[in-house]
């Protein structure tokens, strides 16, 4: 009885406890060709 209960809980745990990774971390926008850069005064 205890074994079954612990097994069920472990199964539910494995489904709930895993942390989700940020898969969009590497997704960066490149500068658009129309981007206006501020002029740098010398």
């Amino acid at each position, binding site marked *: *009885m*205890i074994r079954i*209960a*612990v097994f*069920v*809980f472990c199964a*539910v*745990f494995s*489904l*709930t*406890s*895993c*942390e*989700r990774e*940020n*898969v*969009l971390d590497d*997704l960066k*926008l490149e500068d*658009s060709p*129309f981007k206006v850069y501020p002029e740098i005064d010398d």
Partner: protein
Amino acid sequence: MLRYFITILLIFGSLSIFAQINVPPSKGSLILLVKDKKTTVRLDSIKYDPNNFNQAHLIDTGSYVLRAWVQGHELLEDTISVVSQKYIRYKVDLERTAAYDTYRKELTWYRVKKNLYRYVPFLVTGVYLINQKQKIDDLDDDLDFSEDAVNRYYSDYNQAITPNEFELAEKNFLERSARYDDQLSERNEVANQTLIVGSIGVIISSYLMYRSFKLKKPVYSPTPSLLSHVDASFSPILMNGEILNTLSITIKL
């Protein structure tokens, strides 16, 4: 409830039979109402057959000493008079002994505790985990949706031609990315919380379940055997040249 209904039916049935049959003057009718079939009932020295409980029977007129007893109850002693051609209904109502009452309370408490320890914590933890899993699933769905949207805006940005298209795609991409980050944080927070609370729940539940198997069921022992508390032994001793046996008795209280 059914038992009382049957009893009432039997009483009326007996009454109707009694009304129809011809009762001789030397006899009266007696019905003993007894709840527990295990009850021992004696009229004077004659044991009353439990199969005859709750049914009317013709018996000789006169006074009888009724003694009734069942385990865990006080002995009932009463005198009943059976009158010629009359119907007597006697309810055998035995009072529980204090020891038996205590035993019953202990037994009830044992059962409550056993079920409480064995099932309730696991049930509560289980419901919590299932609920959290549902919550995490919903958050995962939202995340999937946001992930698709971010990828779509990223693709839109890379395929943009006009400045307006670039601007719109960038705006959408940044908004969705920020939302995705928030959703991801929330999702992982819920998952971590579930892990901590769920672990504590499982540990407590397992401990209480273990305790439930260790609970001792109360035992009712109305007549403790004296012999089980007595150790008796013969020891031979030499006295005045003769061997004598002495009996030593130890009584454990």
